[in-house]
């Protein structure tokens, strides 16, 4: 067994056993950590593997969340079925954005701005749809918090904990398979040199579109989890620019294009935010904004001093071989 596999096994064991020792507060923090590791991994498919920068990724979270939640609230469709509609909606919208962008040669900064424009457009659109609650929000009826109902996704917080753990493990394994697949190598070729990839006979348009649609669909599943875990949705939160930024922070801080990056980034950033809150409260600061201010400063320090992300740096320290698709191979 490689040292990497052992490390991963230990991490998984720690998360699986955490509910034995952790209280409700710590568990809720760990759920957030895994949620950001999950959506970060999904975003990483598009940016880290295929090199297409999406700065409006919360669009897919919001679409997934609203689709599954609206189907549940209005028609009583269980989450286990609603998630297909949620993923389909996001894949369709991602396909439209990707097709528009790639067909018309919208590149780099311009493509990133296109993704922001669609997310912001959708945010304001959803504020004007009365059936979805508009700006006042859409609320899911809180059911029995004691049971376990995976079909309707109602039940105990521990059920949600293990669900998001399973999702995070699942997407990790999927991405591991992907980077070593034909499609994964196609993405890397496109990411590194689009013209050279085209010259090799790779259908660049299709490769990029596949990455966007896959990333969108997987992100939407994170949105379904979000909707049923928090039970409330507001357009100015679900589709906000801030959420998009939050999604991409973990993979970038952890290490873009690496498999461990999103997990490590989430493990650093979420507890960091919580620690800053606790520290400022303990020191008697109650002022609004102090937490975010410290957060911004920490973020600045990380991008300034570890621009490739924490994982490539840590990997060298631990003497581990680079994982496929990582900086080391490219």
């Amino acid at each position, binding site marked *: 067994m490689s040292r990497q596999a052992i490390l991963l096994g230990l991490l998984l064991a720690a998360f699986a056993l955490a509910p034995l020792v952790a209280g409700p507060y710590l568990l809720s923090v760990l759920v957030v950590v895994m949620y950001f590791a999950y959506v970060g991994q999904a975003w990483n498919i598009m*940016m880290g593997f295929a090199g297409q*920068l999406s*700065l409006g990724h919360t669009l897919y979270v919001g679409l997934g969340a609203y689709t599954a939640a609206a189907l549940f609230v209005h028609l009583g469709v269980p989450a286990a079925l609603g998630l297909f509609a949620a993923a389909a909606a996001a894949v369709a919208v991602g396909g439209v954005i990707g097709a*528009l*962008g790639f067909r*018309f*040669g*919208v590149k*780099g*900064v*311009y493509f*990133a*701005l*296109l993704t*922001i*424009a*669609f997310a*912001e*457009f959708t945010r*304001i*659109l959803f*504020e*004007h749809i009365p059936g979805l609650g508009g700006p006042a929000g859409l609320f899911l009826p809180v059911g029995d918090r004691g049971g376990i109902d995976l079909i309707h996704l109602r039940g105990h917080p521990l059920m949600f904990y293990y669900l998001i753990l399973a999702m995070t493990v699942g997407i990790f394994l999927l991405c591991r398979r992907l980077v070593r697949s034909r499609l994964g190598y196609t993405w890397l070729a496109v990411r590194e040199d689009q013209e050279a990839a085209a010259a090799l006979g790779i259908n660049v348009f299709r490769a990029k579109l596949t990455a966007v649609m896959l990333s969108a669909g997987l992100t939407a599943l994170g949105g379904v989890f979000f909707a049923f875990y928090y039970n409330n949705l507001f357009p100015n939160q679900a589709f906000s*620019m*801030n959420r998009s*930024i939050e999604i*991409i*922070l973990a993979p*970038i801080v952890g290490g*873009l294009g690496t498999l461990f990056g999103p997990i490590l980034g989430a493990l650093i950033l979420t507890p960091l935010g919580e620690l800053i809150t606790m520290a400022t409260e303990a020191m008697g600061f109650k*002022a*609004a*904004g*102090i937490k*975010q*201010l410290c*957060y*911004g*400063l920490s*973020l*600045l320090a990380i*991008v*300034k001093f570890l*621009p490739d992300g924490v994982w490539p740096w840590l990997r060298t320290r631990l003497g581990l071989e680079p994982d496929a698709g990582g900086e080391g191979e490219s």
Partner: protein
Amino acid sequence: MTIDLANQIVTGLLTGLVYSLMALGLSVIFGVVRVVNFAHGEMTALAMYAAWMLFTWLELDPLVGLPLIALLLFALGYVMQRGLIDAFVAKPEHMQFILLVAVAIIMVNFSLLVFGPDAHGIQVPYGFDTYEVGPLLVDKVRLLAASAALAISGLLMLFFRRTMTGKAIRACADNLVGARVIGLNVKQLYAVTFGIGSACVGAAGALLSLLIDVMPSSGPELTMLAFIIVIVGGLGSMGGALLGGMLIGVSEVLAGYFLMPSMKGMFSFAILILILVLRPQGLMGARK
């Protein structure tokens, strides 16, 4: 009704010109340094707070305080480029994005910490004066602010065409290697450019403080607004920023007039999407 509509359009055009000046700063920075300033609106908000402080404490009219605020923002931009952004100029776009997002987060929360979450507005003595131009009613503040914005934009164009520094900056934008070969200090010129772009922001912030209230959340909104204007007009094109500003100013009032005021943003983003897809170089930008 037509008179009312015409008044609205004039209001949109004048407000748009002030937006233009802010967007011009973004355009200048991107055109030369090739870094997208995602903290642009946040810097504008800081300038608006500066104008508010000068007005509240020293009873200084924002139009009088404008040069001082522009100078302060020049210094801020210069230092930011020198100390922080310069190391990221050659880095990939997403790294620059995260860096400037971090700067933006710091600025928003600094304003929240210092000024609180409430909106701050400036009420000058001539705030309700209007001019009658034929059948139209034009606000005096709006006309003054728009004229000042237009004059400053003109001065900026003169600077880039007539002065040696301006020409050197344009040389960096046109041919970076060539600029290095003839011995231009690119690092220094980049910092000056970022400073000039920020000074535009300072001036625009001082003028905007006459027209709208400022609160911490104004920053991100103004950033988006600046982006839309610059993309619609053409990133890097100065004339495009002016045109884009007026276009967005008018589209905002029209969307508010015919639909709902809360839908005006949707209108602007729809224009942005159309321009990005159909004419990514913007209305006045040149095809690369």
